[in-house]
């Protein structure tokens, strides 16, 4: 049945808000075009020399200095999974980095699953899309990924091998679908 005048905006909103997940290949294609663009000759003064330095610093320096943010705050939980601000752009004075810093912090998620073939991160920041944020395998059974996130409270979980949903038993919320998710408060590192 077609929605009435009073109700058509709700299904419109739901369907038009539904975000496609085109995956890493589509984003890699964009970045390939951006890299080609970056190689094109520029007129003098196109980019401040400080910008590149500042951006690089913001993405690499803060790993050791950020605050652990796992909302469970239970040592046993952070041993298996963690979320950690690795970059705070607003501490660096370039326009792009500041603008990222105004709205987003880069958070490093780490999860231990030695026998997993694939691990994905799902949360309210990626519409719980299991194909959106894959973790990369690191040493000693660890899996990691960096995600740009807005400040505030988030909920997240890991999906192991496409089916196993792993929340956090020490500090979790129950979602409308009955699954459990960890809480994460993203704040500026001290």
């Amino acid at each position, binding site marked *: 049945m077609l929605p009435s005048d009073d109700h058509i905006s709700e299904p419109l909103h739901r369907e*038009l808000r539904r975000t496609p997940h085109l995956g890493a290949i589509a984003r890699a294609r964009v970045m390939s075009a*951006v890299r080609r663009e970056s190689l094109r000759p520029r007129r003098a003064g196109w980019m401040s020399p400080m910008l590149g330095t500042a951006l*690089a610093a913001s993405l690499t320096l803060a790993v050791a200095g950020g605050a652990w943010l796992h909302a469970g705050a239970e040592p046993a939980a952070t041993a298996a999974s963690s979320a950690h601000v690795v970059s705070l752009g607003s501490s660096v004075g370039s326009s792009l980095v500041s*603008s990222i810093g105004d709205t987003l912090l880069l958070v490093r998620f780490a999860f231990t699953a030695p026998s997993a073939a694939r691990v994905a991160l799902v949360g309210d920041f990626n519409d719980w899309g299991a194909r959106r944020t894959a973790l990369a395998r690191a040493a000693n059974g660890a899996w990691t990924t960096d*995600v740009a996130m807005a400040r505030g409270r988030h909920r997240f979980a890991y999906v192991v091998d496409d089916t196993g949903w792993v929340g956090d038993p020490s500090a979790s919320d129950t979602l409308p*679908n009955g699954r459990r998710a960890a809480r994460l408060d993203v704040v500026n590192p001290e």
Partner: protein
Amino acid sequence: MNAGDIEAFAVLVDRYHDRLTRYANHLLQNRADAEEVVQDTFVRAFRALPRYEEREQLSAWLLRILVNRCRTVAAKRRVFEPLEAADYEFDPGEDVADRLAVRDELARAMAQLPDDQREALALRFGEDLSFDEMAALTGAGVSALKMRVKRAVDRLRMLMEGTRAAV
């Protein structure tokens, strides 16, 4: 430019790519065109970074570039080949077949709207913008935008009722 700039920009692409694609698909109803304008938007944004003014939200700045690119492309060509079901994920509790039918019906109806109405609809319902935000983005007045949305909704209803009556 160095590798750090590219890395930082990749964060923006990760963050905004799918959202921009959502809008472009609503506007153009063509996957290839949508992907092309989104890529073009990011390249233009990268090129224009030195002119970016911090008082404007980054997402709004990107959307402004995208809206203009979509207007240009929409004026040139129109082939109905929108994103497919596989490009979306559905919640476990959703009736996927029902949702896909609604999506398809809605996409076909939206493709028949005038460009300005489709744009207003996508900004209002897809991007959840206020009419003031829409006015700032499009250059149109608030009352004109309200009228466009109303006409778009009325037209959608008529088109979708017509489809169902024909089945």
